[in-house]
């Protein structure tokens, strides 16, 4: 590997592209540069870990909050009225 094959990546650069990295939207050569950097840099390694934790935390916000039953009943009534099923 020649000198020009080595991508100089600063911590700031890594923070800027962390989403591309986590989304897998990055070329192999850049991915390697990032992974090399992460191996040597506890700060960036922690930053990436925190981004992953953040994503996991966000997923935990998913709500199973259903509609109010009266809204649902009303919707079902409207559905039957506007879309009458073929008479059974």
């Amino acid at each position, binding site marked *: 590997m020649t000198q020009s094959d080595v991508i100089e990546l*600063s911590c700031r650069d890594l923070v800027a592209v962390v989403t591309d990295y986590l989304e897998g939207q990055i070329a192999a050569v850049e991915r390697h540069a990032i992974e090399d950097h992460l191996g040597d840099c506890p700060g960036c390694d922690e930053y990436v870990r925190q981004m992953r934790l953040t994503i996991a*935390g966000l997923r935990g916000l998913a709500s199973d909050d259903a509609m109010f039953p009266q809204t649902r009943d009303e919707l079902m009534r409207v559905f039957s009225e506007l879309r009458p099923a073929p008479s059974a």
Partner: protein
Amino acid sequence: MEATRPERPDERELIEALRSGDRAAFATLVDELSPGLLRLAMAHVPSRAIAEEVVQDTWLGVINGIDRFEGRSSLRTWIYRILLNNARSRGVREKRVLPFSYFRRRAEEGSDGDIGLDPDRFQGRGGDAPGGWARPPVEWASPEERIASNEARDVMLRAIAALPPRQREVITMRDIQGLSSLEVRNALDVSETNQRVLLHRARSKVRAALEEYFESEEVPA
């Protein structure tokens, strides 16, 4: 341009069922999608009750519009688009009063070249390692348990509420509801790159809010 295919093979049948007045099919779809639609609506309107109306209007739009749905996007994407249209116009009418988030948003939107983190966290040109950490992130204590706490949930929800609208939509759909980037692009009509930039900024700000929370908490030694 990449074609958008319905995600499910049985989608055509589902559309036919809705058109022909199949109550069970409609009820299943309503129960499956409404929680996510409510969450997304709440990103735009000031109360749960108004979000509920927005979702109800969305379903009325589905009932009335299903005959005209041409299947150029997936059914789910189409429903999300209807919701977003309703929620945005409702959100404008019911303008939320959030001075704090307003100032924060203005500050953020004004800064171009935003990498998602305060530039002071890095060393400047004169530093030993320009672009290296000046103040690196500190390891979070017992993060897995604490991130699921009510306090952390509040921190995340407040951070999301303070985001510019597009960022709020993308992070809600991608990270909270788990939609694919393709579904989000289609629902919001943004490019893949734009979608990722919005997601990056939004996630970075939520992480920063969590960092503040983790660092401010007294952790017993």
